[in-house]
């Protein structure tokens, strides 16, 4: 009787184990589908082509480092913007001075080591080190007071004052500084060896890097929170010439290539799919040093004149003819549909009206401002890296201004030559309008502060000695935004900030651009990019094979 009972208990246990293990096995099988083939991506630049996150800037990190590294805070894949990453959630203490990040369990590095809060702390310390080339190293050093590992899955970060935007700044949607590196491995092998044989926790493992030519990765074969790759290998090729990239996609040597708007039509005519990623950038123009006393008599010091110049721009023409129809009317400065704590719909309606084309009204405004016959305007035309089409946009804008009587002295700069002009006193830029750009990011305040804060590099509203009403108002709103925890109040403050900038017409969006890719439908299946994210580093693992999900005809 006792033996029968034991057998029954065993039988029951086995039955439960089998019944539990079957769905689990099925789940695992579903999570790790058969991986085959090589996904080849041709890109115009590999930036520094280093696999050490502290030595690479944002574009390189987003293009290729993202494949093998996870970020502490990740993406909202569907909507764009900030979402869970290595940390599945995070919270702010009541006093607003401590952020606690909860690391998701069960993650591992490519050598099998577990991903823990120790790695997160170590990674941030590396990013903040004096030898780090991370663009926000100094800002992180200033804002982060201390870090404490509470347990293997909990990291506490104390900040020097309220830093509401800290999680966003550690998200790859915004910046590269949240990349998680393996503490134990780096401490064991040293930095030099780590750079030669890097290890991350992302869906792709490093295989090799051929300088100036390519990077090769191999897919992991276990489930990953970002998705388990469907291809066995990933090759990212450096092909600087756009026509060569498109040819490679047409011949099947590459599955995907980054392209510019001018190539979209020919790529589509050649039988390729063309993917447009919405809201990746905003092309704009801005006025420099309009606040300076020596510019007080300049036409550009008058908001009505600046507004008139905006009304003279036929944005639809630019979208249609310069951008081949693959761009859209912009939101206000540095704002996108996915921008957080921002009334996107309300402001889009405002922008559609404010950024209309009305040359008659523009001329009338100029006349009212005392310039019935126009005036002379110095215009610096330039393109930031990766968006060369900005020069064409700038040329079109200058041409439209001449039609309302403005004599435009246009000078085209290579970005490397223009950039130093905005440093320090900006003597050569005072009274000049120039092209500029903002990339698609969900956190608006940082970008606003970079352009309008009195202590910022660009300080378009004013600086320490000449900080007028708008300049002071902006600093006040920005400081309040940094500390505001309540979502609704934060949105109110953002609205105030956007209105302040919009009413001054000092930095004016021209178009909202997109990221463009030519795709060979025989080499890769249909996939969607992350809204607002130009680079595909966080998308490769979700790309299906051509058989799995063919492109719709």
């Amino acid at each position, binding site marked *: 009787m006792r033996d029968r009972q034991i057998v029954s208990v065993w039988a029951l246990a086995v039955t439960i184990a089998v019944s539990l293990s079957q769905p689990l096995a099925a789940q695992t099988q579903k999570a790790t589908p058969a991986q085959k083939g090589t996904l080849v991506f041709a890109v115009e630049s590999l930036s520094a082509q280093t696999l050490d996150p502290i030595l690479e800037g944002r574009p390189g990190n987003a293009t290729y480092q993202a494949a093998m590294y996870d970020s502490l805070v990740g993406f909202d894949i569907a909507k764009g913007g900030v979402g869970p990453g290595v940390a599945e959630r995070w919270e702010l203490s009541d006093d607003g001075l401590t952020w606690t990040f909860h690391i998701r369990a069960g993650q591992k590095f490519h050598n099998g080591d577990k991903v823990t809060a120790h790695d997160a702390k170590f990674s941030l310390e590396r990013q903040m080190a004096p030898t780090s080339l991370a663009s926000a190293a*100094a800002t992180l050093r200033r804002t982060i007071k201390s870090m404490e590992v509470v347990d293997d899955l909990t990291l506490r970060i104390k900040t020097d004052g309220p830093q509401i935007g800290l999680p966003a700044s550690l998200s790859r949607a915004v910046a590269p500084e949240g990349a998680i590196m393996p503490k134990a491995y780096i401490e064991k092998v040293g930095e030099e060896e780590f750079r030669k044989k890097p290890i991350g926790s992302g869906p792709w493992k490093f295989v090799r890097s051929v300088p100036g030519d390519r990077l090769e990765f191999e897919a992991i074969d276990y489930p990953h929170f970002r998705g388990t790759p469907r291809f066995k290998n990933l090759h990212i*090729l450096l092909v600087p010439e756009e026509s060569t990239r498109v*040819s490679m996609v047409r011949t099947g040597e590459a599955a995907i290539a980054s392209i510019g708007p001018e190539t979209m039509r020919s790529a589509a005519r050649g039988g390729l799919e063309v993917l447009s990623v919405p809201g990746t950038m905003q092309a704009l123009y801005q006025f420099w040093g309009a606040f300076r006393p020596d510019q007080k008599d300049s036409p550009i010091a008058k908001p009505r004149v600046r507004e008139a110049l905006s009304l003279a721009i036929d944005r639809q023409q630019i979208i249609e003819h310069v951008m081949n129809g693959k761009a859209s009317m912009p939101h206000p400065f540095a704002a996108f549909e996915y921008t957080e704590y921002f009334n996107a719909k309300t402001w889009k309606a405002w922008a559609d009206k404010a950024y209309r084309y009305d040359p008659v009204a523009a001329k009338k405004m100029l006349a009212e401002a005392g310039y019935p016959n126009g005036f002379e305007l110095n215009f610096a035309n330039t393109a930031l890296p990766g968006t060369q089409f900005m020069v064409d946009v700038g040329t079109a804008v200058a041409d439209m201004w001449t039609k309302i009587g403005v004599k435009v002295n246009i000078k085209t700069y290579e970005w490397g030559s223009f950039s130093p002009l905005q440093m320090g006193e900006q003597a050569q830029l005072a009274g000049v309008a120039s092209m500029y750009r903002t990339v698609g990011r969900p956190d608006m305040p940082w970008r606003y502060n970079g352009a309008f804060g009195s202590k910022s590099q660009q300080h378009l509203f004013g600086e320490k000695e000449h900080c007028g009403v708008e300049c002071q108002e902006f600093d006040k709103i920005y400081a309040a935004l940094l500390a505001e925890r309540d979502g609704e109040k934060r949105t109110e403050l953002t609205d105030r900030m956007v209105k302040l900038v919009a009413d001054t017409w000092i930095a004016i969006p021209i178009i909202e651009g997109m990221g463009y890719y030519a795709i060979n439908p025989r080499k890769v299946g249909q996939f969607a990019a992350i809204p607002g994210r130009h680079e595909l580093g966080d998308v490769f693992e979700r790309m299906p094979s051509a058989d799995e999900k063919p492109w719709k005809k």
Partner: protein
Amino acid sequence: MKRYIVYRMLQGVVLLCMVATIVFFLGRLTGNPVDLMLPEDATAEDRVSMIKALGLDGPLHEQFLIFVNNALHGDLGTSIRMRQPAVEAFFDRLPNTLAIIPWALLMAMVIGIPLGVIAALNRGNMIDRAAGSVAVLGIAMPSFWLGILLIYVFSVELGWLPSGRMGGPAHYVLPVITLGAFLVAGFMRLIRSSMLEVMESEFVKLARIKGMSEAVVVWKHCLRNALIPVLTLWGVFVGNLITGAIVTETVFAWPGVGRLTYEAVIFRDFPLLQAVIILKAVLILSINLFVDILYAYVDPRIRLA
């Protein structure tokens, strides 16, 4: 001869010092790499921090003295962008450039030299004009246009050859043709004029009087003498190819030193730019010295002079 070589080497050292000084200061006039590495919303604080991390914070003359001191110890600095020793980066890429240059030269000589001889033999008639047209075409066609055209025809339309990048023998065909097209024209024109000059020489007349066959006169006696100026041109061409393969390497995504130079300029990677220019100057000076010495052996008149 030894004195001549030592003199030329000293000249080379002086030239290298001048090149290094010019490239150091000229590069820094064009901007700062930090401005290209930072995002649009970077703060002034971030900028200062990065400048310091890259060692670009000292006064220019101090940076120059450090550069000279390091260069004298064989260290041309570390690439700002790649964080790799600049000399190492150069020598990583040099073999890739050198892999196509001999083929481009061979192609140029195999086509250009016979074409030049044929043109000289048919001076003024249709064949000469046709050969001249080939030369003009080779010189006039921009290499980026020719490269893209070749890719379109042979890769996209016919599917015979890969579009670019390093790989097996098939990957060499289009870059070599693109690089060699210009040289074909150069060799053809030089051989033609040189042959015409030699064919008027007394020794050629004597060879004909002696009853030698026309083929021997042309291909043995005339061509051998006409090839002497080609030797000089060969040296110049190799130098030009090492420094000037930028366009071909860019169009065909070929990771050579030409593209490395372009990247160093675009990213304001000063240490890399300095190293690349100095090392290229060393290469070109060495090739020219080698050609001059060779020339002196081939043509005794040079040695005597």
